[in-house]
C-alpha cells in the first residue's frame, strides 16, 4: 500500500519563528533518512506558499490559466510524503513521527490501487 502523508498549514495561523523552522527542517531531514533506510520512502517534499501556484484548466479544448491556488480554503497543502506501508497501522506510526518532526498535523490518505 502507498499512503500520502499530507501536511496542511492553516492560512493566517501564527508563523513559526526562524529557530522553530530550523528545528523542523533538521527533524524532517533525520526522519527522511529513517524512512529511506526503512524502505518506506517513495517521495516527499515541502511546497512553496500557495501564492506561487498556477491553476491550469482545459475546457472544450480551450486552456485557461489562473493565478493562485484552487480555492480560497483556509487550509493549504504545505508539503507531503508518499510512503510505502503494509497497512494503516504502519502508516500511522510514520504519520506520528512526521507530525512530530514537522510540528504540524498530518493527514494520512491511501492511494488508489496501484496494482503493486
Amino acid at each position, binding site marked *: 500500500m502507498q499512503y500520502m502523508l499530507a501536511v496542511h498549514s492553516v492560512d493566517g495561523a501564527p508563523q513559526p519563528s526562524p529557530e522553530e523552522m530550523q528545528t523542523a527542517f533538521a527533524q524532517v531531514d533525520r526522519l527522511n533518512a529513517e524512512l529511506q533506510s526503512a524502505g518506506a520512502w517513495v517521495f516527499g517534499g515541502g511546497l512553496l506558499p500557495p501564492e506561487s501556484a498556477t491553476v491550469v484548466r482545459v475546457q472544450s479544448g480551450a486552456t485557461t490559466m489562473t493565478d493562485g491556488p484552487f480555492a480560497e480554503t483556509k487550509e493549504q497543502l504545505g508539503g507531503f510524503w508518499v510512503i510505502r506501508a503494509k*497497512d*494503516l*497501522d504502519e502508516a500511522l506510526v510514520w504519520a506520528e513521527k512526521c507530525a512530530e518532526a514537522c510540528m504540524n498535523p498530518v493527514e*494520512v490518505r*491511501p492511494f488508489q490501487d496501484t*496494482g503493486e
Partner: protein
Amino acid sequence: MDLAGLYRAEYGRCVATLTRLLGDIGLAEEAVQDAFAVALEKWETPPPNPGAWIVTTARNRAIDRLRRESTREARHAQALLLQHPDEPAEVGPVRDDQLRMIFTCCHPALSPLAQTALTLRLLGGLEAAEVARAYLVPEATIAQRIVRAKKKIRDAAIPYRVPEAHELPDRLPPVLTVLYLIFNEGYAATSGPLVRTDLCLEAIRLTRALADLMPDEPEVLGLLALLLLSEARRPARTGPGGELVTLAEQDRSLWNRELIAEGHDLVRRCLRRNRPGPYQLQAAINAVHTDGDATDWPQVLALYDQLLAQTPTPIVALNRAVAVAEVHGPAAALAAVEGLELPGYHLLPATRADLLTRLDRPAEARAAYDEAIALAGNQTERAFLEARRAALDAQPSSQP
C-alpha cells in the same frame, strides 16, 4: 428450526473467521449470507455443529464466487484461501478471530459511532435498524456509517489483528466502550423483550477473552466484573409474567451466587491494584448492591461521587441521583436531575416521575410518566412504566 436464532448466534463468529480466510469483511459477509441461504434450503434440522457447517459452506461459496471474478480483491482473497487449505472444517481459532475483529471494528481511525455500529453488526449480528434504535439515530444514518466504515477498513488497509502490548493503552478504551454498549443493549434491549440474553452472553464472552489476553489491565477486569454482577441479577429482574422487578423488590435468592462470587473476587483484585477507572467504579457499585441482604446506599453514593468526578456525563449524574434519593431523599435527588439533558432517553423522565411520585406531586409525575412511556422502546419497560402511572391514578392524591 430456529434459523433466525442460529443466524444471530453464529453470524459474528462465522464472519470473523471468514474475514481472516478471505482478507476482506465485505467478501466474508457475502459468503456467510450465501451459506445461510443454502442452509435455509437444505436443512431439515441443523447439523451438530452449525457454525462449522456455515464456515465450510461459506468458504466453498466464496471460492466459487472468486473464480468468476478477477478483481484485485478476488485474487488476493483466493491467494489467502490457498494458504489455509484444510483448516475451515473446524471453526478454527474462533477466540482470536473475534478479538481481531473487535480491534479492527474499534480502530481509532474510525469514528466512535462507526466503531460501535460495526461491532454490533459484525460481532453481535444486529441489523442496522436494531443498532439505530440502540443509538437513537435514524436507520439510514447507521446503515451509511456501517457501509462507510467497511469501505475505509478496506481502502485504508486497517489491519485485521490483535494489537501489540505497547499499542494497547490507545487501542483498548474504545473496545471496552463497545463491549459495555453491547451488554447494555442486551440487558435493556431498546426494542422487543427486556433482555436479549444472547447479546449479554456475547459481551461477557468477548470480555472474558479480552481479560484472558490482558490480565494486567484493571479496567478490563473491572468491565468483566461489572458485566458478571449485572448478569447475576438477571433471573430476578423479571417476574413470572415477564414484568420488570426493581432492585429493591427482587428476590435475592434468585441471583446467581457463582457469578456474584466471581464478580466480587474481580473487584477485590482491582482494589488491590488501586488504579480505579470508570468500569472498576461501576463494578464496585454493583458489588455493594450484591453484598449482604440490602444495599449500603451511602457507600454507593460515595462511589458515584468518585465516578462522576472521573466521568462527568449526564448518565452518571442521573444514576447518582438514584443514590442521592436513597441517602438524602427525593427532593435532593430531583434537584440533582433538573437541568440534565438526555434527549430521547426514557430513564430521565422515568426517574423524575418516580421522584415526583415520592414527593406526592402526581400531576407532574403523570406527565413525566407519559414522556417516559413515549420514549421507551422496550415493551417490558413500557409496561412497567404504565403500571406505575396506573398506580398513581388509583391512589387518591393529597393535592387538589
